[in-house]
């Protein structure tokens, strides 16, 4: 996917674990791992807002877009 999630870098920078963030944000660690590993298909605004609030960052710090062509289906 051309969207990259930088959650692992942000967690490392904030010295926070997936379990701790998931508790603060109110989503399951499994779902947060899906987001961290790029398996998630969509992010709710409410989740994005909660992650940005807890990690004190902007959505642009969490997500970035790279211009790599999509593999053909």
């Amino acid at each position, binding site marked *: 996917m051309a969207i990259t999630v930088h959650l692992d870098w942000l967690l490392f920078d904030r010295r926070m674990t997936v379990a701790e963030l998931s508790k603060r944000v109110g*989503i399951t660690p499994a*779902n*947060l791992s*899906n*987001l961290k590993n790029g*398996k*998630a*298909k*969509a*992010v*709710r605004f409410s*989740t994005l807002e909660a992650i940005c609030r807890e990690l004190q960052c902007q959505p642009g710090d969490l997500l970035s877009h790279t211009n790599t062509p999509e593999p053909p289906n």
Partner: protein
Amino acid sequence: MSTTGRLPKVLQRLTEVAIAVTILAAVVVLLVTALADVPLDAPVEFTPDEDTYSLSSDAWGSGTILEAVGTARFTERSASLVALWAAAVLTYAVSAITLLVLLRRILQSISAGTPFVEANAKRIRAIGILIPVFGLLIQALHWATALVTMDTVAAEGLHIRASLSPNLTYLFIGLVIIALGEVFRYGSQLQADVDLTV
């Protein structure tokens, strides 16, 4: 996550009972057919001689019976009729058990709270394909029975006819179920999207 009521579980138990009863009935019927000298019924179509069977009604007038569908009871059985009878019993049993097993698995997944999965879409599509296929098989057996009996049976004033007219009802039911399977396929894609939304 289980948000379903008790109905799927009750239906699941009913399908399990139906599977057991079907297996038991098929085994008993096959054993009785093979071991005991019981009379056998065969579905047949008759065309009576013209003017052999007349009808009369004060309200509607009078006429003759052109064709009739019915059952012939053979008290003395031939080997070919016993073989056809056994094939018919096996076809009915295999059809019913296959459809019931597929239905049971669908009900199991509904009970577990995960009805919208690709496997269920495939199961529903399989049911939609199998219903007309089994319907056609059963009709082919009726046709074969009539073919066998046509040459050997002598009935006064009656001609036994073998006809293979496809039953479009089975085909229509199958098409409706296949369409439902496609709805489930789309539902399973939506479910996968929801599952991967954080």
